């Protein structure tokens, strides 16, 4: 049931695209201020689950509670206004518009020009590329650079919850590290992050909580480290070659 203490709660969520249910009853809580990473095989329903949060897919059954408020049935715009912003899996910038124009579009719900200016200033500090490439067409940026601009754009609404669908996809190792660092940074300044990643080992390392989705239901949930070190999950979904925790970097 609704519980205002719970930040985000999936409650018996069943959803699909008409050809059968992709999500077959998903239940778990996302705690405020953390990074929660969803992992699982291809086709397990990860992207669909994220779409139910942002209102792009309407669950057939169940409810999603965001700070005590039911999200099911709200329009994507209403969900944005509540402070939930999603960055989709495939590139979503307007390629023919400039970097600055793309970022400004992120604030389309904000009417106060002063607020927009303040946020823009803050965002240029966090994402220097927004200032450096402000006048360049977004389509001329590399894949990784476009990713960073997408993050910058989503912060223009000052969201409480940032939803990311495979933020590392297609990124070279150096940019991947930068993107993961940026996610940590967004989290450090108070945003709760819910993300889906196939780059599961690195993503779980930086996540407080991990959720394994399998065939449309939650197979396992725990801390990021618990999921990472679960031998069965490792064999099934993490490539089966998890290094023991003692050999990890920084330990």
């Amino acid at each position, binding site marked *: 049931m609704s519980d205002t203490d719970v930040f985000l709660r999936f409650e018996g969520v069943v959803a699909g*695209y008409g*050809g059968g249910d992709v999500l077959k009853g998903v239940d778990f809580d996302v705690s405020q201020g953390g990074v929660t990473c969803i992992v*699982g*095989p*291809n*086709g397990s329903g*990860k*992207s669909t689950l994220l779409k139910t949060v942002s209102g792009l897919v309407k669950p057939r059954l169940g409810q999603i509670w965001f700070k005590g408020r039911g999200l099911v049935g709200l329009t994507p715009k209403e969900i944005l206004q509540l402070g939930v912003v999603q960055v989709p*899996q*495939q590139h979503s910038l307007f390629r023919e518009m400039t970097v600055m124009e793309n970022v400004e579009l992120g604030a389309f719900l904000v009417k106060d020009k002063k607020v927009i200016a303040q946020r823009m200033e803050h965002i240029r500090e966090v994402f220097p590329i927004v200032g450096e490439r402000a006048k360049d067409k977004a389509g*001329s*940026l*590399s*894949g*990784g*650079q476009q990713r960073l601009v997408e993050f910058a754009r989503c912060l223009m609404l000052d969201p409480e919850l940032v939803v990311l669908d*495979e933020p590392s*996809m*297609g*990124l*070279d*190792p*150096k*940019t*991947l*590290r*930068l993107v993961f660092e940026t996610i940590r940074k967004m989290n450090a300044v108070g945003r709760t992050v819910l993300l889906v990643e*196939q780059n*599961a*080992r*690195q993503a779980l390392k930086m996540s407080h909580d991990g959720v394994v989705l399998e065939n449309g239901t939650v197979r396992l949930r725990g801390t990021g480290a618990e999921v990472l070190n679960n031998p069965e999950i490792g*064999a*099934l*979904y*993490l*490539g*089966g*070659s998890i*290094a023991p925790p003692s*050999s*990890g*970097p*920084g330990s």
Partner: protein
Amino acid sequence: MTTLLRVDNVSRSFGGVQALRECSLDVEKGSITGLIGPNGSGKTTLFNVITGYVKPDAGTVTFNGKTITNARPDTVFALGVGRTFQLTRTFARITVLENMLVATQRDDSWLRGLTRSMSSKAEVANAMEWLSFVGIAQLAELPAGALSFGQRKLLELAYVLVADPDVILLDEPAGGVNLTLINTIAEKIKALNEGGKTFLIVEHNMEFVMGLCASVTVMHQGSALISGTPDDVRSNALVLDAYLGGGDDEESEFA
């Protein structure tokens, strides 16, 4: 070893951006060659030049001793060069199996392609075999549009394999694919390679590239920076700086 595919001094600009700059690359027959490099270094453009989707401003591409510079994509494909795309391209409204059957018709004339209504049992069986090979046979009757991103990538891989090309260009086969499945795909590529197929693979997953490829070429700003064994490449200071990024502390993650 003989060179199956040769790219010689290829250049190509888009507006003010020089995507390829006198880029040269040899792919040995029977090899698995890796192509790595930062985002925007020209890897996909090179694939597009080889497969006829983009015409180079200068330079030549030869396959099996035959010049294929400026040849059309269907001609290059018919000669035996198959490829997948970074972002998948499948027909969304027809089934997974039907997508596969379209790929088997490459030898037909356009007229026969228009008039044939049935695929033979052997073609269906063959298509199903490749779908099993990549692990999505159970999805054969679904419209391709209902597949997740990762599943569509696998369909595209099967789609290329069913046409039986001599050299297969894979553009980020592991991107968006579950880690365990990545290992499975790597094993399948090894098996196909042992059966005589040559591979050229663009991929950012270093474990995948380094575990699979005997030779790796690093691209940087439109040119081939260095080529060598995975160990040569991994320990090269230029590569570390341009591609893998600094920070020795986390190096094990990419090793």
